[in-house]
């Protein structure tokens, strides 16, 4: 740590102006005042340097010292990240609690990774082997599901001179690398990376696999691909957080990073308390064994909120570089944007729309661009991905506000939450008319394995829903009874799709996670039902008769059944009832004559 020392000249909220920090660069981390509060250089003019302080500045006064570190804000990366709860500056909140009690105190320092813990390190290379950046030199079994691969840090290559198997702390030297320059470089389990700079990779590759979330409306209708991006905008009370939590719990990513950015403390507490108990449906292990939490809640200093998002994405890239598929969930990017606005305002920059800085869209685009599916650095051409899903909290539920409208331009899928649906307790309250996805074509191959007709079913179902919403408008004026029978059937099928497919209970033990094959089956049944019922309606059978069949209304509950055979059997039952109804009518028709 280099020792530039400056003096505080002015304090205005989180903005601190200092003099005498020679050689400071923007983005450099600094320690402010006698308490050594963490901050960052945001602007330099002449001898004066503007600093953004990440902690509360109460009690600070002009004349106190400022220490420059000469390095940007870094993420500490290594074994021990999994299962941890950090604040936006990568301080372990569990350690802070042990150290300082249940309230967060300023100026308390804890190292991100635990220093006392020893990890079993198994080398994967031998002395004399040539390695380059990104190569795996060895592994540590970090949790029962995550094998933490120790990589040659970016920017280094050479010949392994020595490497040791054994138990090490993150600070111990596990290997020595002889660089071409002759320099001996000690390699440890820990490495560092500046959070604002994307970690490099070899090349981007096309995305073709969905991130399965087990949520029907997402997976079937508006899927996101591994390496893709999605935004989930919604006013308060539209079930945004619960939807994100469901994705965090059930998504099939190898590692899940949940960034609680400026959100409720009790919600974080709920996640932090209940996540460890949850079982991963695929591995049967606990979900906490593959999750990292960043809990920068709404009443923590605003400036740290801005950094928390980059901290999360940097950790994601680090696991991607090991060859994992990582999902990053950010709740909420609006709070992050507000932090940008707050800092911009204190710097007295000229505001653009609604007080947000003019570079808002640039920052949002940069953030989502850190997602992707890539061949990572290293000789073995491992593939990894980062999928970013960000919540957006539009003020007043207005999607035309700057953060929402900008985000919509840069994401691949949009899950638009709808307060009206939430009022009706239709959850997840994702509006099927306003949501979109750009990934259907690239994902068709995946779904075709379950049923080659998948895309057709999906399009048909969306068309029925769309048509139904138009008809509902008309029915609202003239009453449903006044509609012709074929249109009333559309309304009935739409109701079956809505209640029996789109509505999914996060609290029902079976319904909470719906595997892809079951999703396809349910959808197929509903489209098939519509075709059969359409024929019946053509024969003049009233929709009310179809609706009155108990087995038809049972279609709404198929989602609660676990076994696919049972679902098939129940549908066969409904089909038989429909056929019987048809036979009854045909017989009556014949009797009555033409």
């Amino acid at each position, binding site marked *: 740590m280099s020792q530039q020392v400056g003096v505080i*000249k*002015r*304090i*205005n*909220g989180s903005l601190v102006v200092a003099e005498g920090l020679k050689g400071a660069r923007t983005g450099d981390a600094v320690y402010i005042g006698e308490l050594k509060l963490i901050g960052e250089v945001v602007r330099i003019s002449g001898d004066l340097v503007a600093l953004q302080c990440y902690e*509360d500045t*109460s*009690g600070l*006064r*002009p*004349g106190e010292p400022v220490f420059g570190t000469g390095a940007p804000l870094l993420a500490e990366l290594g074994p021990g990240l999994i299962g941890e*709860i950090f604040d936006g500056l990568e301080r372990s*909140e569990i350690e802070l*609690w042990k150290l300082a*009690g*249940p*309230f*967060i105190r*300023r100026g308390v320092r804890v190292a991100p990774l635990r220093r006392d813990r020893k990890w079993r390190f198994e080398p994967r290379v031998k002395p004399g082997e040539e390695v380059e950046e990104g190569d795996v030199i060895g592994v540590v079994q970090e949790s029962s599901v995550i094998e933490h691969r120790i990589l040659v840090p970016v920017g280094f290559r050479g010949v392994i001179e020595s490497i040791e198997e054994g138990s090490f702390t993150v600070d111990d030297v596990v290997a020595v690398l002889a660089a071409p320059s002759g320099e001996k470089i000690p390699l440890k389990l820990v490495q560092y990376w500046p959070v604002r700079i994307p970690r490099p990779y070899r090349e981007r590759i096309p995305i073709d696999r969905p991130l399965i979330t087990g949520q029907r409306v997402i997976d079937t209708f508006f899927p996101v691909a591994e390496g893709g991006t999605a935004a989930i905008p919604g*006013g*308060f*009370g539209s079930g945004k957080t619960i939807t994100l939590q469901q994705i965090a719990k059930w998504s099939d990513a190898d590692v899940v990073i949940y960034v609680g950015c*400026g959100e*409720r*403390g*009790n*919600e*974080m*507490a*709920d996640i*932090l308390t209940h996540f460890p108990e949850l079982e991963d449906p695929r591995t049967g292990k606990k979900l906490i064994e593959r999750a990292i939490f960043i809990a920068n*809640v*709404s*009443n923590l200093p*605003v400036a740290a909120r801005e950094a928390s998002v980059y901290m999360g994405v940097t950790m994601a890239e680090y696991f991607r570089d090991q060859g994992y598929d990582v999902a990053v969930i950010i709740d909420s990017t609006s*709070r992050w944007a507000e932090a940008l*606005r*707050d800092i911009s*305002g204190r710097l007295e920059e000229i505001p653009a729309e*609604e*007080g947000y800085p003019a570079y808002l869209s640039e920052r949002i685009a940069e953030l989502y661009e850190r997602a992707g599916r890539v061949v990572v650095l290293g000789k073995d051409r491992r593939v990894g991905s980062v999928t970013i899903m960000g919540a957006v909290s539009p*003020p*007043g*539920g*207005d999607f035309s506000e700057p953060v929402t409208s900008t985000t919509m331009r840069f994401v691949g899928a949009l899950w638009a939450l709808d*307060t009206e649906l*939430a*009022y*009706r*307790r239709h959850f997840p309250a994702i509006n099927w008319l306003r949501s979109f996805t750009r990934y259907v074509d690239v994902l068709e191959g995946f779904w075709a394995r379950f049923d080659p007709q998948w895309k057709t079913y999906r399009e048909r179902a969306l068309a029925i829903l769309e048509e139904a919403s138009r008809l509902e408008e008309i029915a*609202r004026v*003239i*009453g*449903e*009874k*006044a509609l012709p029978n074929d249109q009333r059937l559309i309304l009935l099928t739409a109701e079956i799709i809505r209640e029996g497919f789109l509505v999914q209970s996060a*609290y029902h033990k079976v319904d909470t996670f719906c595997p892809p094959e079951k999703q396809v089956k349910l959808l197929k049944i509903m489209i098939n039902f519509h075709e059969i019922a359409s024929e019946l309606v053509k024969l003049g059978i009233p929709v009310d008769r179809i609706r009155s069949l*108990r087995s038809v*209304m049972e279609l*709404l509950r198929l989602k609660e059944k676990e076994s696919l055979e049972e679902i098939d059997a129940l549908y066969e039952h409904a089909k038989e009832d429909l056929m019987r109804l048809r036979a009854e009518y045909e017989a009556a028709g014949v009797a009555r004559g033409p």
Partner: protein
Amino acid sequence: MSFLREKAGPIYRTVREVRGPLLVVEGVKGARYNELVEVKLADGTEIIGTVLDVSEDRAVVQVFGQTEGLSLDSAVRFTGDVMKIPLSDDLIGRIFSGSFRPLDGLPEPIGYERREIFVSVINPAAREPPSEFIQTGISVIDGMNSLVRGQKLPIFSEAGLPHNVMAAQIARQSTVLGPEEEFAVVFCAMGIKYEEYEYFRREFEKTGALDRAVMILNLANDPIIERIIAPRIALTIAEYLAFDLDMHVLAILTDMTGYCEALRSISIAREEVPARRGYPGYMYSDLASIYERTGKIKGKKGSITTMPILTMPGGDITHPIPDLTGYITEGQLILSRELHGRGIYPPVNPLPSLSRLMKDGVGPGRTRDDHIEVSNQLYMAYAEGIKARDLARIIGELSLSDREKRYLRFAEEFERKFINQGVYENRPIEKTLEIAWDLLAMLPEDELVRISEENIRRYHPRYRSA
């Protein structure tokens, strides 16, 4: 003044500018950011303030209290310490002003310790997720928007609606199923009228709650700027009672609209760039620093449950005050002028109302197995009923289908029998669910899709009587 331990610190008579509640003082040496200052006006009145912006020889001070009479010859004393209040159990039963002056004629409190009122953040890792159901005895809350200990659940109201009556009823009736525990009420008034305060005082007195209450009052005619510190004083006391003295605290903050207006005044005086409708861009974070002091802590017995009340300007829920509040609080109870007009009390419209923590506090082992499902079904059926009512307004009730007519009748009965109840009527949760089932029995059984078959078998009146 109880904020100050002793009269210490340098005094400056170098005020160069007065702008609303802001004073610019020059030649100041060694002032700290957010430091407490004392301002002595020409007529001898003493008010307090804090440092908002400090440079090497200049400090901007924001005063709390009356801003009339501020002048260039005011004397400003820098105390060298941030704003703290003394804390002890003697505070219970006391009444203070928004700047912590006793209003009950009793002496200034002496505390065991003094604590900062501005900075207090519960470590998310140390939070205990709220899960204890609070029975308020009000069906529309208990049945459909249950309150749990450690939750912040605001009432979104409009001028002229009975939000105070409802808040007082909640304060009176709230109990947790199980053994009795020590409780306290912290009441913070921001810009409400004297009669409103008087109403709360009388209601608390009736049930003896007044002896368990701490009141912080900033009434409509008190200095608006004091509203910035009033809720923070209230919550600092609440934290002390809950986490040091193991009490269960209900904090009532009314009216948050008054608070936000004060925040806006200061922001405008500081010439900040406004975000929406003149309110500052940091209002979300500011409100969070108040609301988020609610909660429970692992390993501590006590809890803080907060019920902020706010009147939505023009009944507009997209207005920044209700909007930002809704993003921070764990749900909201929304009062409806239409229900009020039809004589329904409490006029809580369940459709847009929500309690996010309900799922953790009710259900098997807490209230009853069918609670959540019944609640979801009531929502769905009432929404259908409202749709039918809207339709009937256009095409006439006679043209509705049988199904629509049934839901319309359900909605009317639901409002009259379930939502509606007496101001002094305290319904146990079993009673609430019983009324709900009697109403749901009006609908065909296979339309009860949100309720599992087992629960229909167990609780539906048809099977109950059989």
